[in-house]
């Protein structure tokens, strides 16, 4: 990490924040604020206080995110552009436009956008592995570009789906984080975005293939789920889910799941690298994979991020449960599995603090953690019954 000339000449007093921000930052903040204000003008009358608060907080959060992680600005603007364009194509024709309008049909109706997302993620996975094995920097750049595009299509797809749900009926419309199909898209999105963040920060593309492998698997499930089960149909919300809590609980949860999945795949890379160093120190993997310390660091950061957001999500879940079911904790299977995941990573974080358990055990544990996480988010819905299956109401 070299220091630029300018850095050295800079006055030692820390520059005030407003001086460190570039014109794009300002433009960005203004654009987000204007977008939020516009949304509020259009829909403020339909929002309750919580929703206004959520709008304000998420705008502030988005501005901060963009300032801290610069590529987020362009990404968000592109997604906003695509989504607004798609919405404008729906125009007065309503739902029917999804089949009749060229852009919607082939590109931007939520179904098409999500198909594009799926294809792009799979291509990106192949490209990342291509880059890892060929060592070609160009292929690596292509892989990153594909991943960004996939995420942009996925997020636009969700945005458009949100709009489409209102086209079905004003009372049907809802944020698309309400069923397994929708949260799988969210999972792909968040996992790849968290990955892109670390890719930029650590300047290595060697982990892309590993992380996108999980994303591609999720894409596989998504395709099966939508073609085999018709899960992409937009369904109205059951009463239990009609709450502003859903809007914050679910995304927070999926930041957790995404980060844990990423950590598991970095754990795989760690194990491969350690093995390659022992068996074949001159080999491709040993040379091309990042240093063990770096892998360990990414793994820790991802689990810390996941743990923090999972803590928030579980607590939000408890608060929601208190409001919807009459008790903040009912030992319902979904709840309990969230606790199990949480305890598991708490144990992981403590293991990292004890000398004897660092290294391979920690990496293995992160990998096993993926299965625990997977069960919490998929297995519980498939195999266990409880309040979260909304059997009663």
């Amino acid at each position, binding site marked *: 990490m070299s220091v630029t000339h300018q850095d*050295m000449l800079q006055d030692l007093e820390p520059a005030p924040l407003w001086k460190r921000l570039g014109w794009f930052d300002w433009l960005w903040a203004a654009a987000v604020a204007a977008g939020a204000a516009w949304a509020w003008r259009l829909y403020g009358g339909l929002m309750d206080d919580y929703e206004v608060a959520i709008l304000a907080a998420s705008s502030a959060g988005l501005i901060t995110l963009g300032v801290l992680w610069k590529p987020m600005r362009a990404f968000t603007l592109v997604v906003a552009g695509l989504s607004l364009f798609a919405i404008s194509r729906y125009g007065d024709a309503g739902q029917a436009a999804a089949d009749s309008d060229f852009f919607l049909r082939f590109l931007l109706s939520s179904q098409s956008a999500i198909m594009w997302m799926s294809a792009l993620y799979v291509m990106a996975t192949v490209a990342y592995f291509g880059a890892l094995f060929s060592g070609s920097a160009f292929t690596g750049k292509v892989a990153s570009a594909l991943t960004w595009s996939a995420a942009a299509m996925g997020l636009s797809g969700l945005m458009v789906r949100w709009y489409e749900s209102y086209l079905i009926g004003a009372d049907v419309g809802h944020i698309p984080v309400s069923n397994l199909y929708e949260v799988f898209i969210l999972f792909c999105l968040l996992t790849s975005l968290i990955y892109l963040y670390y890719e930029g920060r650590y300047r290595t593309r060697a982990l892309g293939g590993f992380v996108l492998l999980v994303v591609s698997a999720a894409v596989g499930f998504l395709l099966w789920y939508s073609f085999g089960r018709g899960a992409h149909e937009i369904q109205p919300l059951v009463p239990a889910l009609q709450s502003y809590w859903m809007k914050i609980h679910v995304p927070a949860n999926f930041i957790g799941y995404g980060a844990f999945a990423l950590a598991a795949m970095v754990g795989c890379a760690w194990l491969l690298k350690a093995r390659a160093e022992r068996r074949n120190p001159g080999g491709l993997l040993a040379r091309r994979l990042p240093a063990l310390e770096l892998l360990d660091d990414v793994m820790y950061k991802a689990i810390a991020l996941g743990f923090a957001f999972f803590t928030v999500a579980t607590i939000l879940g408890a608060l929601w449960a208190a409001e919807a079911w009459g008790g903040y904790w009912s030992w319902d299977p979904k709840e309990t599995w969230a606790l199990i995941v949480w305890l598991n990573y708490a144990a992981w974080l403590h293991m990292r603090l004890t000398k004897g358990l660092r290294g391979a055990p920690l990496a293995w544990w992160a990998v096993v953690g993926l299965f625990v996480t997977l069960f919490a988010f998929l297995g519980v819905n498939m195999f266990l019954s409880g309040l979260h299956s909304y059997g009663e109401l």
Partner: protein
Amino acid sequence: MTDTPGTRPAPVSRGRILLEFLGSMNLAITLLVAVAVASVIGTVLQQNQPYQDYLIKFGPFWFEVFGKLGLYDVYSTAWFLFILGFLVVSTSVCIYRNVPTMLHDMRSYRLGVQRKSLQAFHLKREWISEREPQALEEWLARLLKSAGYRFRSRRDDDHRVLAARRGAWSRLGYLFTHAAIVIICIGALFDGNIPLKLRVASGDLKVETRDIPASEVPAVSRLPVDNPSFRGSVRIAEGSSANVVFLQLGEGYLVQPLPFRIEVKDFRIEHYATGQPRSFESDIVIHDPQRDQPLEATISVNHPLVYRGYAIYQASFSDGGTGLTLDAWLLRGTSTEPMRIQGRVFESVEVQTPDGPMTLEFTDFRLFNINPVKGPDGRVEQKNFGPNFTFKLRDATGQAREYQNYMLPVEFDGRPYFLSGVRESPAEPFRYLHIPLTADGDIRRFQRFNALLWDDRRVEAVARRTTAAAFAGREGQAAVGEEVVQSMMRLVGHFRSDGFDGIAEQVRLTVPEDKQAEVITAYMKVLQAILGELYLHVLEDEGISPDKGLDEAEERFFDDAVNAISALKAYGSPFYLQLKDYDFVQATGLQIARAPGKNVVYLGFGLLIAGVFLMFYVPYRRLWIWIDRDGGRTRLLMAGSGSRHQQDFETEFDRLAERIEAQIGPRA
């Protein structure tokens, strides 16, 4: 903050060893994993179900074993609480041991370090400069400040020290997180049902297992009105009210009186255009002696009412005693007119049947029954089958079957049927009897056809006529003809009470094995002939002339009717109950809770979130710069230590070092 084995001082007291053990990281890890693993059990085995269900599922032996292990309510068994308690104790010990040093850490800058110890640091750099120590120190102080550090300095005879740190708050993060665990567990202890379980175990309270009105529940199963913490439920029908809730506990329940009465005015289910439910709402009125005016409110899922610390939730709904007007069509006998029965859900009615006296117990009524059906284009659609009601039919020996009848005809291939489900036990799915109806949705034709089979006189007459027609012109075969008539009567007799299966069974018992297939085919032919003839009589009675031949609908009707009659044996009930009218009354299921521990738990939640973010995202770092003279020149030693994000800290350290170097020249 890690255990380093072998650094303990030699002689230690037992108390210390215990503290050491309880506060050890390995124990923490073990306990975290243990709680996680133990928690899995209760998710695999559904908790707090009726004990009867477990008994059926596991059989008497395992039912007993699992019961002893407390697996039906894992999360309040002694052993689970013990592990949890152990974790809380261990966390507390950990806080007790670490917090004093950490708090001290937060305040102290550790100006008293020695040069030697700084040299032992993993992160350190040294430089030699021609500059004056005073000027250097001033510049360095500015550098540290610009990097976000706070610092203190000390000047001794032969050296100066700058001791800097940032992110001291991260230390509080540790305290917050771990204290939160303890606080949440303690708060949750107030709100859980452990105190109740203890009182039940001590005999102070006794769970009620009988299904009796709340007013008859004895005092040992009642809790005081001022009980500060409980979570129970109650079902209240529209138009009635309640001032108690029931707390489910083990095999039974306890009664919790409320200081006010809740009246339910109305319960509503709103639907989306697609038919799925959109909202469940109850209009309630609270009658409280403390109020002048009753309080009216509407509650719905996600929108509870909190009144005087009692939170009232919309939890479920059920029938509230809907009135049912029924027509009972006898399935065994010659009667063609129905018998009128009036009933109410949750009540029972005694009836006289051809099978002796029986009890009808009405258990449920549902106005909407939305089920997925495959449409003609193969797509699955949601379809409303209309109202249905459920009842048990109990005979004199106490045996019961459960039935579920739909009010409206259901169409299959464009033909209408009455559907009636039957099952022996709740564990089975319903098997459906399809009774064919005429196009106007009337059951009478079926009823007349079935009744005709029981009218021996008419069956015989029809049998004779049919046989006579067949044997016409064949003189001397009267005896054979008579035999055919008798066998027709016999076959109809078996068929009407036991169906095709009954006839096959009869053949199996009386005919040698190699002849059975042949005989059955012959019997079926004869049976079909007589049944067909009987059916024509039914049509004739309706004024339909069979001379023109039957249209397709009438033929299909015959097949369906024969199949339905053949299934009556398995159906079991001596009559079919047709729902003619209903007086719909619903009940709302309310959950009412008082949870004083909630505020404590929420405090814990706040601390936990704050603590986790402080720990992870406020990096805790320390730097020392030691400045002294070395033969006319100035010597600098910078050392640093940081917890967590070690890589980031090294990067920051390198960056600072580069800036120092840029200022004073390359390192020594």
